[in-house]
């Protein structure tokens, strides 16, 4: 286990910024801490690096309890959102700084710097000053600088936040390759769920200083345990229902209860349906999934590769459903405003009502 957090806590005045967070991260894992701004994610990263003192709990890196150690003795690599390169030093001096501090000889340093410049695809740019580099290049230099002295963990605080979308996508792939190649245990903090999905081995969702849920991107997207996670990770339709026996009762119909939801038996629940899991048909028999009701199309709109359709169910208790369909499907059903449709659910998940996770 490369990173172990045990009830780590940070308080400012009367406000708890990091609220007893416990977490274990495997060696070589790329863990993404996902949360909105002010959720405490960056603070947690700084606690791990030792840039802020923790008010409670234990932090172990590589099996070493570092809770009481200053940042200098934790051997972490930290990349800031604004890169924070040393602007009076060249790219090579920036990358070599950690090795210089470790009293490595100039020969060793130069060799390592050359290696890293190659790794980040900036060969030959070692003599440039930071302000002569583009944002994306600065970001890569910051990464190389943090990796140069082979830190036991790599900590990235919104590393792509200041870049435009196209460069961001490219740099994510870059980071992923480098991380896999070096097998360095990594925590990346972001508010961007796409980034989390693309990079993470596991995602931890953090909100109000609490680690709400941890899981693989797939598990968190399809089977979240909390309403917050469900709505934070992508668009979510939530229908009120009641789970009794083997079924969930929704309006006038019932659906088979998903197998992993026994703990919600005889409870009011919410059915979570992702927009791409809603099926529409013109006849009830044409539905290939479980029927949930009848409704009327309110809106059809362009959403890039897919069309976004909004359907109001006849049962007024339900919020309008967000549906994503292929353009082909929209054409074959000739969907337009006021089309009457039957609605089915291909895949769904149950959440406890009121958004509270059940402790069991």
């Amino acid at each position, binding site marked *: 286990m490369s990173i172990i957090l045990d009830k780590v806590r940070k308080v400012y005045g009367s406000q708890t910024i990091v609220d007893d967070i416990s977490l274990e991260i495997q060696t070589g894992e790329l863990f993404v801490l996902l949360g909105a701004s002010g959720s405490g994610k960056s603070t947690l990263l700084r606690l791990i*690096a*030792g*840039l802020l003192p923790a008010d409670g709990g234990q932090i172990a890196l590589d099996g070493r309890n570092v809770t009481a150690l*200053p*940042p*200098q*003795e*934790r*051997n*972490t*690599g*930290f990349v*800031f959102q*604004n890169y*924070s*390169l*040393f*602007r*009076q030093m060249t790219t090579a001096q920036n990358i070599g*700084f*950690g090795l210089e*501090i*470790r009293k490595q000889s100039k020969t060793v340093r130069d060799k390592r710097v050359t290696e890293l410049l190659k790794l980040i695809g900036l060969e030959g740019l070692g003599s440039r000053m*930071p*302000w*002569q580099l583009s944002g994306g290049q600065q970001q890569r230099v*910051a990464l190389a*600088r*943090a990796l140069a*002295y082979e*830190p036991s963990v790599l*900590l990235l605080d919104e590393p792509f936040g*200041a870049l435009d979308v196209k460069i961001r996508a490219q740099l994510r792939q870059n980071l992923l390759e480098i991380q896999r190649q070096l097998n360095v245990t990594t925590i990346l903090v972001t508010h961007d769920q796409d980034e989390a999905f693309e990079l993470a081995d596991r995602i931890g969702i953090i909100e109000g200083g609490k680690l709400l849920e941890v899981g693989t991107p797939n598990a968190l997207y399809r089977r979240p345990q909390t309403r917050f996670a469900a709505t934070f990770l992508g668009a979510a339709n939530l229908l009120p229902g009641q789970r009794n026996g083997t079924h969930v009762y929704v309006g006038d119909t019932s659906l088979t209860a998903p197998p992993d939801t026994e703990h919600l038996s005889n409870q009011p629940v919410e059915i979570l349906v992702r927009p791409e899991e809603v099926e529409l048909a013109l006849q009830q028999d044409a539905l290939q999934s479980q029927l949930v009701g009848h409704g009327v199309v309110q809106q059809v709109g362009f959403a890039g590769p897919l069309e976004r359709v909004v359907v109001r169910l006849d049962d007024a208790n339900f919020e309008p459903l967000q549906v994503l369909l292929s353009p082909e499907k929209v054409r074959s059903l000739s969907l337009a405003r006021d089309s009457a449709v039957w609605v089915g659910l291909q895949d769904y998940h149950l959440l406890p009502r009121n958004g509270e996770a059940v402790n069991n």
Partner: protein
Amino acid sequence: MREIRPHKPLHFLILGIALVYVAVLLLAPIVSIIQRALENGFEPVITSLSEPNVIHALQVTFLMTLGAVLLNTVFGIIIAWVLTRQRFRGRRILNILVDIPFVFSPVIAGYTLIVLFGRSGWLTPTTIPIVFALPGVMLAKTFVSLPFVTREVGPVLATLDTEPEQAAYTMGASQWTTFRRIVLPNIWPGIMYGVVLTLARALGEFGAVSVVGGGIEGKTETATMFVFRALNDRNDIGAYSMSLLLGVTAIIVLIVMRLLRRSVVREQAAYVNHSG
């Protein structure tokens, strides 16, 4: 552009007022000193500046000013650091105290130093004398020029991003190494500008220095005090010559200051243009 080329009578009137004001109050004295000092060529100037008393006064001025500059640079940076990087009780009071030399009459400043370090003062040392001795001269110069480095370095430190420092910490750099390698290069232009201002102020100080030092000829007399004595003694050529020398030094300092200021502005512009 809000600038205009003057073309109406009113424009010329306003321009004229500004020029005459500066000419009478600033330019005319300088010109008159130069004119009077060089009335009979360079020779008398050089002769009068070569007198042992004058040379001693210049040595005292130079060395004591150097001491004041060194003290105020080191302690000025420390005060600026504490004021911008630490939150503590009394920070605002400290911040106000730093400006006292700006508002205190130098004579009063000198007097307080006598009270403090003179006979039966709170801090009177038993071994070396301070009042009416060279340490007193240096202390007086230090007192009057104390705020400049702090006031020049403070704003630079306050706007300095601290994340590069944090990055250096995570890379294993100690606080001192981080200050030396990361912070110092960034605040360097501010320090230099503060040093130049400190130098100018300490060099030209008269009031406090004459009160604390006593202006003992050949002992604690400084360049400005020499000018004052020369005037009393009707030693006109001595007064003009020394004034000329101090004036030229001041103008050199002014030019250095302008050049430094320009480099500070340029550096800030470069940083703004290329970051974020």
